[in-house]
């Protein structure tokens, strides 16, 4: 099963809708609770990264019996230093975004924490491609 959603930059009213739909679909196909939780965190953080930082993008969930793959592809400023962006607390979000409770520099670290495999490719002034794989497991926390 594959689900794909268009995500618009700065659309905070609809932000999170794609992740919520992915969650429902994963529950319907009977994925483990632990898998659903991790996949939802990855999907939400990836979706919000597009909304906060990019002009537009797509969020895709590929669902297999043994794993979920979440892909976020955006057109935006890109990430100049991925290692730095992976550090907890590092953020380039402006003050008005932080006032909404975002921009604490936990987006990519949370995606990393919840992923079994993670690939991030980015080109400055072009965009970013995030691919996360979450294996379907009963527990693990």
């Amino acid at each position, binding site marked *: 099963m594959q689900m794909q959603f268009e995500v618009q930059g700065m659309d905070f009213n609809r932000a999170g809708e794609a992740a919520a739909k992915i969650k429902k679909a994963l529950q319907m196909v009977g994925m483990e609770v632990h898998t659903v939780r991790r996949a939802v965190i990855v999907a939400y953080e990836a979706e919000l990264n597009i909304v906060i930082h990019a002009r537009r993008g797509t969020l895709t969930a590929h669902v297999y019996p043994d794993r979920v793959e979440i892909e976020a592809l955006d057109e935006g400023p890109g990430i100049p230093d991925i290692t730095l962006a992976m550090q907890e607390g590092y953020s380039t979000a402006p003050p008005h975004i932080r006032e909404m409770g975002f921009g604490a520099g936990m987006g990519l670290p*949370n995606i990393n924490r919840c992923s079994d495999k993670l690939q991030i490719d980015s080109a400055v002034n072009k965009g970013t491609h995030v691919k996360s794989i979450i294996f379907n497991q009963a527990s693990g926390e």
Partner: protein
Amino acid sequence: MLIKLQDVKRILDAEIITGADMLDIEVSSGFGCDLISDSLCFSRPECLLITGLTNIQIVRVADMIEARAILFVRGKKPGKEIIQLAEGKKIPLLVTKRFLFESCGLLYQHGLQSS
């Protein structure tokens, strides 16, 4: 220990914004935070989400983490859109004039565990 929303209301002298018919719902833990990502990652299902954030994303996060209810602190009341979304998701909303620290402390004192 499970605590009913009607007890949360009493303990914190809270006002019900939506979900007055759901005060028998029980919460198993509390999570107090003003950060979206931390609320998403560190709270547990069936918790009471305690926050000063009143934007629509806090309801989306509550829905995703399967929080039982949201308690807004510092007397902050959410707007219409947020209330409508919470009603659609059947997530009761409460507001107290108490601060985050004080709200968490009082609920902990009455037996609510940390999420």
